[in-house]
């Protein structure tokens, strides 16, 4: 899906415009800076799936020498452009995600050996808040509010995934 033919400069220019737009959505003061805590949202809404660790790496590159709590567009733009051109932090395909959900019960000898398609609330909470890059309480609550089936007190992850995987057009340049 070529945007401006095979002109490389055109591709870069288009990427830069996109990044700038996304950045400005979070630029409350209209002075081309955003709160450092919003960088994650910006990077992710541009189509990337970084881990927290990867995000911290990126932040280190765009923050000021003396951390002010703000990130300037002029520092962010070149770094993010490279990220998009290099296709770092690629998206996770739906089936890989499915496997991850199926993974737990198998190793825990818990409920879902038969791959019945659900995992209990307790299990999910335990692993999301203790393993990997743990969720905050807020993140856990929010996930449960939409994922949990109150009748069974379990997460039917197949449904959940298909509901949540947004049909996005991948409009990164090929």
């Amino acid at each position, binding site marked *: 899906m070529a945007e401006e033919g095979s002109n490389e400069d055109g591709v870069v220019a288009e990427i830069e415009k996109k990044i700038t737009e996304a950045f400005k959505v979070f630029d409350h003061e209209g002075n081309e800076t955003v709160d450092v805590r919003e960088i994650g949202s910006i990077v992710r809404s541009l189509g990337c799936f970084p881990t927290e660790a990867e995000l911290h790496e990126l932040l280190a590159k765009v923050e000021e020498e003396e951390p002010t709590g703000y990130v300037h567009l002029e520092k962010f733009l070149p770094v993010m452009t490279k990220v998009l051109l290099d296709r770092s932090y690629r998206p*996770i395909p739906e089936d890989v995600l499915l496997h991850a959900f199926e993974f737990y019960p198998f190793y825990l000898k818990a409920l879902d050996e038969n791959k019945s398609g659900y995992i209990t609330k307790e299990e999910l909470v335990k692993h999301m808040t203790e393993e990997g890059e743990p969720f905050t309480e807020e993140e856990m609550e929010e996930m449960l509010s939409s994922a949990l089936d109150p009748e069974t007190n379990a997460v039917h992850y197949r449904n959940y995934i298909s509901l949540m995987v947004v049909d996005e057009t991948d409009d990164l340049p090929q």
Partner: protein
Amino acid sequence: MGSGSSVNVNYKYSLQKSENAFKAAVLIQRWYRRYVARLEMRRRCTWRIFQSIEYACEQDQIKLHNFFSYLMDNFTPSSSKERDFISRMFISGESFKEAELEKYCDYESLEVPDSYTGPHLSFPLLPDHATALLEAFKQKQQLHARYVLNLLHETRKHLKQLPNISHVSTCYSEEVTVCGDLHGQLDDLFLIFYKNGLPSPSKSYVFNGDFVDRGKQSLEILIILFTFLLIYPKEVHLNRGNHEDHMVNLRYGFTKEVMQKYKLHGKKILKMIQNVFCWLPLATLIDQKVLVIHGGVSNTTDLDMLEKIQRNKFISVLRAKKRKELNRNVEIKEINGESQAEPDSAGNETMSSLPSQPRPAQAPSMANRVEFSRWVRQTVQEQIEWCRKLVDISDSEEEELTCSSLVSLTDLDGPCWTRQEEWKQILDILWSDPMPQEGCRENTVRGGGCYFGPDVTGKILEKYNLQFLIRSHECKQDGYEFCHNRKVLTIFSASNYYEIGSNRGAYVKLGPDLVPHFVQYQANKTAHTLTMTQRISRVEESAFRALREKLFAHTSALISAFKVYDKDNTGRITLSNWATAVESVLRLGLPWRMLRPQLVRSTADGMLEYKSWLDDLAMEQRSQEHIQSSLLEVIYRNRSNLETIFRIIDRDHSGLISFEEFHQTWKLFSSHMNIELTDDGINDLVRSIDFNKDGNIDFNEFLEAFRLVKQSQ
């Protein structure tokens, strides 16, 4: 799974397992965070859409200014009918002199029938009356017109003795609660009273303007606020907002609401309210340290001037348009709707007793357009004069004060301000917005007031020894927001303002320490049961509907803009150029590339076939298939202004205008907008409405037919 015969194997195995657990967890977390971030982006984009459309609508006010100027300067009516028509636009909204008002809006002759089951008011009001009213409004009952008018009379009497700046002290009632914009959303007021308690000797309230417009229960809110104002005059304080203005009400729904609810007496009620609005105080000072105003300040804000001016002279923001080449006195008079015996341009004294309608002098030849223009202006001016005199039959104290209109009479030895300066003071207080950058510049988006920076705030706070400002005027996602280094607090009390789930409302409480405490809320049960995703989707849907309508309304301009990028006329443009072109036409400052997936569904090789895209947008306007699409476009683009003009013309607020007037309006407007509109075109329009009222058109019906975004309330 191994049976664990050797320790080594077990160890390796559990290491593997925890590694995999880690990886799996990270995978899910990564994905989930990505999902939340996208939601956050969507939420902010949606917010931006609503805000930019709201402010673009306020720009319509400027367009209306320009339209009137255009009329004054350029339009040459071809018949006396046309001339009458135009002059009616200018004298509409004339305010009555005080004595006339009492007589016209008399309530004593109104009988309350036995069949009336609503609340009865008697004066002086008691707390029981307030609770009865609250209960009645909860049951969707309506207060009888007699009581409404009586209440308005009493309110006016009370407000007249109040200074321009109210003073509140936290040592009397320990806490003061400040509420922001309510905009006719009665449920929010109920919620505030429920959470915070009713006004009482131990509970002070400041309501910071914009009680009316947009929401459907503006009148009920006014009734409740005025009732509490009269019962607890020391504890309840009202500030005027920019929507406490009858010309603004014509556009934003309050006028319509009153006329729908009070078909017989609505006009009287509106006249009274128009006057009451002018008497609302302009600001409130808490403990001499916190200034509460509706909009903001400017670099010329002068509290001393504000305290001294005659605030009731500022009737409406729309009426102070400067007109070129006119005598200064006439201009000032026009600004304030006062009347004096003034020599007309020809230098003749106009009669002071009831004059007969002046016959226009012989029109000069059309060939000399300058002459002709001047003649038109003069003739229109004469008509205005005449109408004004008809209204102004008796002397009132108002006239005494105004004869030396350039001097503030309370302080003859003091500073002498021009009406223009005074007018700007009030305009700035009611219409300004804070901005992050330093400085002070004109607020072109709203068409009034200015944008003020942190330096302006700093200077005001220093000059008057204040701690911070509280203002409203702008919708905030969380109901409140600080800016200017916590020196300016915006408080907004209308929750779900754009759509269910769009924002919370809030109020702020201040004790003697003047440390603000906030309470947030959302007055809609549905909002609570929705998940974050559902809430965001719903608001988003609403925003995009409005945006698509806006796009449709600019079809012709968009096609022209697209063609610039499609010189070979292939009918296709790149998505990148699409974004640039759309911004150049709509000028909403939106992140079009982020919004594109929601607006443009199908692309081929990254190219968009723009004509069919625009056709799809047009298809959404289902109900009006038989109307020519370019005409539809015009209507959509100017609907707000058209509505306002209709209401101005419809002086008795009947909701009906004659076919003739309807025709006139269209002709005027289309000539101003440089649109080709034939008589056939207008007839098509008319035929699309079911008008069955003897050659009169119900313009509400007409406008409803072109309303795409349905009110969900």
